[in-house]
């Protein structure tokens, strides 16, 4: 049951209980007032009857002398010279009044006393209707109030989900509207958290960009100078490491460009299957791969897509190189419609990567060997620029599975 239902029910029960207690109190009070009235009326009558009997020796007002039906408790009470009233039990209640008169006789009056007469019935009806009406009104108002409360909390939850999905500019305080209550303070706290996250992310981005920019000039100098070294094994080692360093800086700069949001897709029509085939061919040449390190499958007919082929090639190369380096060959590339799957035969991606996607400098995967974790981050960055969906998972055989799904064709540019 939702918050709205729960609050509604609680308000309903509490108000019903309160109304019930109130009704019982009012009814009891009314009943006892009526009893007092009847009692004093009977008492007045017996006094008048007693005066009349003293002077005329005739009982009036239906008074009787030594009534045999007189309740014994009343008889005992008046024998001591008192005047008394007594109400006999229900259902046919009667009000008695009696007094001792001359010659040791007892004069008594008896009158009917209905527990509920018309006026009490009217009171009952009024209390019942008023009670039900009030409870219904309370229930309605509480459901409306709880509804607006729960709507605001739902808005906060929605904002939290948007933040989790990466929209760090989402504002919960805006979503819940104005007010100074706990929901507002929850929203404010959430916004503070998001802005602190934003700050951290911003710091991470700035760090990446700064490191990359500051390394650019010395690394360019180093690689250019390394190329000038005389031939020989030591020079080869230096050149190789300088090259690795240059690639790392290039990767960092590429990531910094994604972060700055300046990247745009350069769209062209390509046959996806044919293109993937030729891109894999180029990669084989570049990386000097064995022919059966990478296998390309085409399922169904080759689909023509409007996309940025340079980015597709970059994504593919990074996924394949990652599979070869951290998984096991052969890496199988399957093209089916607008989907490209890259599967290796290693131990699969770490669960953290599958759940959260790639993060820079967090390869942290003992089972997949060391790496700086930039290749997949770059692949994900390019996929985002293409509007494509790049997901990481496990292949049925246990290897790593990366799936790139290109967006459906926008019909605008034909």
């Amino acid at each position: 049951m939702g918050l709205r239902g729960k609050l509604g029910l609680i308000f309903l029960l509490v108000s019903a209980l309160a109304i019930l207690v109130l009704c019982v109190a009012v009814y009891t009070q009314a009943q006892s007032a009526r009893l007092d009235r009847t009692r004093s009326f009977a008492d007045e009558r017996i006094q008048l009857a007693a005066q009349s009997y003293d002077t005329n020796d005739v009982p009036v007002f239906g008074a009787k002398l030594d009534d045999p039906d007189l309740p014994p408790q009343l008889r005992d009470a008046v024998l001591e010279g008192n005047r008394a009233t007594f109400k006999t039990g229900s259902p046919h209640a009667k009000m008695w009044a009696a007094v001792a008169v001359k010659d040791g006789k007892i004069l008594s009056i008896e009158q009917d006393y209905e527990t509920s007469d018309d006026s009490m019935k009217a009171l009952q009806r009024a209390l019942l209707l008023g009670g039900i009406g009030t409870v219904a009104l309370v229930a309605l108002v509480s459901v409306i109030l709880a509804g607006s409360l729960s709507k605001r909390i739902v808005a906060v939850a929605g904002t939290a989900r948007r933040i989790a999905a990466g929209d760090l500019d989402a504002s919960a305080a805006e979503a819940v509207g104005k007010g100074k209550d706990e929901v507002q303070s929850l929203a404010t706290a959430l916004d503070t958290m998001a802005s602190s996250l934003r700050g951290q992310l911003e710091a991470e981005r700035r760090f990446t960009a700064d490191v990359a920019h500051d390394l650019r000039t010395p690394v360019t100098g180093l690689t250019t100078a390394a190329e000038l070294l005389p031939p020989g094994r030591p020079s080869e080692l230096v050149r190789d490491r300088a090259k690795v360093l240059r690639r790392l800086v290039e990767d960092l700069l590429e990531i910094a460009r994604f972060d700055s949001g300046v990247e745009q897709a350069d769209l062209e029509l390509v046959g996806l299957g044919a293109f993937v085939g030729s891109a894999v061919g180029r990669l084989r040449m570049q990386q000097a791969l064995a022919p059966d390190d990478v296998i390309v499958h085409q399922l169904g007919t080759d689909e023509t897509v409007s996309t940025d082929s340079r980015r597709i090639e970059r994504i593919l190369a990074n996924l394949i190189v990652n599979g070869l380096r951290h998984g096991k060959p052969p890496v199988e590339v399957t093209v089916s419609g607008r989907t490209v799957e890259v599967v290796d035969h290693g131990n699969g991606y770490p669960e953290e990567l599958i759940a959260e996607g790639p993060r820079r400098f967090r390869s942290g995967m003992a089972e997949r060997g060391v790496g700086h974790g930039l290749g997949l981050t770059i692949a994900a960055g390019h996929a985002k620029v293409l509007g494509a969906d790049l997901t990481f998972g496990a292949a049925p055989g246990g290897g790593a599975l990366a799936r790139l799904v290109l967006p459906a064709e926008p019909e605008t540019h034909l």
Partner: protein
Amino acid sequence: MVEDDAVIREATQLTLERHGYDVTTAEDGLEAIERFEKIQPDVVMLDIMLPGLDGISVCRRIREASTVPIVMVSARGDALDVVLGLEAGADDYVTKPFDTQVLVARLRAVMRRAVSDPERPAPATGSGVESFGDLELDREALEVRRSGQTVQLTPTELKLLIEFANNPGVVLSRSTLLQRVWDYEWGGDGRLVDVHLQRLRTKIGADRIETVRGFGYKLRA
């Protein structure tokens, strides 16, 4: 070669000299312009980030008087630099940190465009003068005239125009043009094509070359 970092300057100079180039260097923009006027080089390699007068201003200044091929050295990660450099008249660019092989290949490609290409035979048809609307292309003299007026094109722009003239009415994609004009076997930046086409259009008439969205460009006869 204009480069403010001493190590890069010296190492690149040595590398280029190994590849047979005569290299004159400059440390900043003003020195660059001074040297350029004195020696009139065959190709200019120009860093964008320079103390004082920056590479883009130097490029613009050189373009005022010369169609010499210019290769910009852009800081990778600064997207705007590339576009600004190309708009200022650069023919191509490499990004720092660059691979010396790539740099040499780029320099070769722009210089090949600058000298007449012996591999491409002149078209067999007629006098070698073709016209497209008010535009005349003289393949033998390598001259372009618009309504009789000579239009000054850089080698890259000329090569681009010739590529279109070889395929009148055919849509050429960016990657085709990158391959045929810039000698990129693969890859290359689509903005090279876009910016050069913008510049070519301002010189030969904006509607002479038509954009076919999602496909590329074509020359209108």
